[in-house]
């Protein structure tokens, strides 16, 4: 009995360490080769660098217009998330508290709309946004994300608010608090767990989104990080030292964030999946 438990344990670690290598090795290869010259990469991509070479980083940083594309991604993501959380919480609060016909109908339409794949609305989006001269405009991209992500956020908030007892609001109402005051002073702080789930899921989705900015942003100065990385790699596809350095620059900020927030991120995604 005891012996078989030990064998099981050994098997577990052997298999899972192999799996770990499989999952993380590609990232290691990118990091390793980003520190070599292109010649070294082509000669032997598994060998350690003869001397640390940061030239790729310097060049990639410049050519990718790194600070600007990083800034663009940051503006789009943070503004979208900030507005999304506010409008979704307000809408869900009304829908959860007032059992009006129109609320129920819109809520049902929102839930049903979540099955629509992006490809189905992609062409009309380009058409409508061009018609109002909204291409090459970061705020238009934010506007799209609000519309595209609001139904899931409303849905998640709605389920959560339904479980908050109504009596809590009564006391505040007697104290003369208005509806907006009640929502933001009393309800909103209680929504913290679900808010962090929504923020995490949507930050990942928006920060990494490619296709929408790809069809709406053309100017280099407005490109988001994934977009810029893609066109950069397209230009220098044969210079592996440069390509891998560019990849590290793109991946690194997320990994650093992950190191600090791993618990919250894993928890948030797990919660989001159950809902």
């Amino acid at each position, binding site marked *: 009995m005891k012996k078989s438990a030990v064998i099981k*344990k050994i098997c577990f670690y052997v298999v*899972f360490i192999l*799996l*770990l290598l*499989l*999952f*993380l090795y*590609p*990232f290691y290869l990118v990091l390793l080769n980003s520190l070599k010259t292109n010649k070294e990469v082509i000669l*032997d991509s*598994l060998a350690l660098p003869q001397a640390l070479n940061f030239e790729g980083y310097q060049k990639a940083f410049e050519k990718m217009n790194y600070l600007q594309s990083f800034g663009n991604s940051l503006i789009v993501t943070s503004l979208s998330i900030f507005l999304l959380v506010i*409008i979704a919480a*307000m*809408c869900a609060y009304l*829908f959860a508290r*007032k059992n*009006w016909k*129109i*609320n129920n109908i*819109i809520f049902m*339409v929102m839930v049903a*709309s979540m*099955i*629509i*794949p*992006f*490809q*189905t*609305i*992609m*062409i*009309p989006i380009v058409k*409508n946004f061009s*018609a109002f001269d909204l291409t090459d405009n970061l705020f238009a991209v934010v506007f799209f994300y*609000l*519309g*595209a992500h*609001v139904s899931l956020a409303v849905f998640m908030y709605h389920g959560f608010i339904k479980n908050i007892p109504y009596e809590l609001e009564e006391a505040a109402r007697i104290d003369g608090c208005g*509806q*907006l005051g009640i929502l933001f002073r009393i309800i909103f702080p209680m929504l913290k767990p679900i808010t962090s789930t929504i923020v995490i899921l949507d930050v*990942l989705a928006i*920060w*990494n*989104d*490619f*296709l929408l900015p790809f069809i709406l942003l053309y100017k280099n100065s407005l490109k988001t990080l*994934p977009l810029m*990385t*893609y066109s950069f790699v397209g230009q220098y596809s044969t210079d592996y030292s440069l*390509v*891998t350095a560019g*990849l590290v620059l793109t991946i690194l900020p997320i*990994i650093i964030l*992950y190191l600090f927030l*791993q618990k919250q*991120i*894993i928890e948030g*995604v*797990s919660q989001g*999946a159950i809902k």
Partner: protein
Amino acid sequence: MKSSKIKNVVSFLVFAGPAVTVFFLVIILAFINGIQLTFTDWNGLSDTYQYIGFRNYADAFADTAFWTSLLRTFQYVVCVVVFTNIIAFLIAYFLTRGYKGQGFFRVAFFTPNLIGGVILGIVWKFVFSEVFVQLGRKYEIGIFQSNWLSSPDTAFLALVVVAVWQLAGYLMLIYMAGIISVPKDVLEAAKLDGAVGFRGIRHIVLPLIMPSITIATFMSVKTAFMAYDVNLSLTNGGPFQSTELVAMRVYNKAFQAEQYGVGQTEALILFVIVAVISIIQVSITKKREVEA
């Protein structure tokens, strides 16, 4: 009575107004416009277009490239959904048994999901076309001696490998949440009745985590059907359009061939197919859900 009605309208506008407005302007308007576009000859540039009846539908049904790519997408979806779910479940199963370091493994396996598909595609393109080829030549490993991305079958396989590699970590979290919520005493009782190992998984664990299976299959089906990013940066549909999945086909039809009407029609057909499959899948797996 009247003033309370006005009050209601005001609070609707204040609370739901912004969310409902952006939702309708972005999603609903585009969806309706999308249906309308399938009956026009819009060329992507001009403000005017003609209504041409069902000609786009006739063109879409006659477009063999679209149906070939749809068939390929079906194969891709089946491979990705089956492998990802099995691997994710097995990982989740062993990571909930109380071994030391399981939290670390969980964090590590999820990592690919933090990074966008286009970036992952570029990473793997480097691995497939440079690292593996060098390895294959150096150690004379048969399957790596030629670049996987340069022949149709192996390029397709490469797409599946990357998708499974990425998605498994996500589904793992869903399955872990499901397995953790199975009551301990049920498992103990099953053990006493002799349901251990594989039999325990099949007769006790799987039926009890049916809700997780519903969500995980739904997610993987939808993700696999919509796959575009990795497809673009890993194979770009090549070699010779052999790995062009349907999402990319629709994009190319519209934006490269500039046949927006036909492209949109094909996108709508894709929507109907995905919706029907999702509904069937959810209703089948939901039926098998049991109470602990």
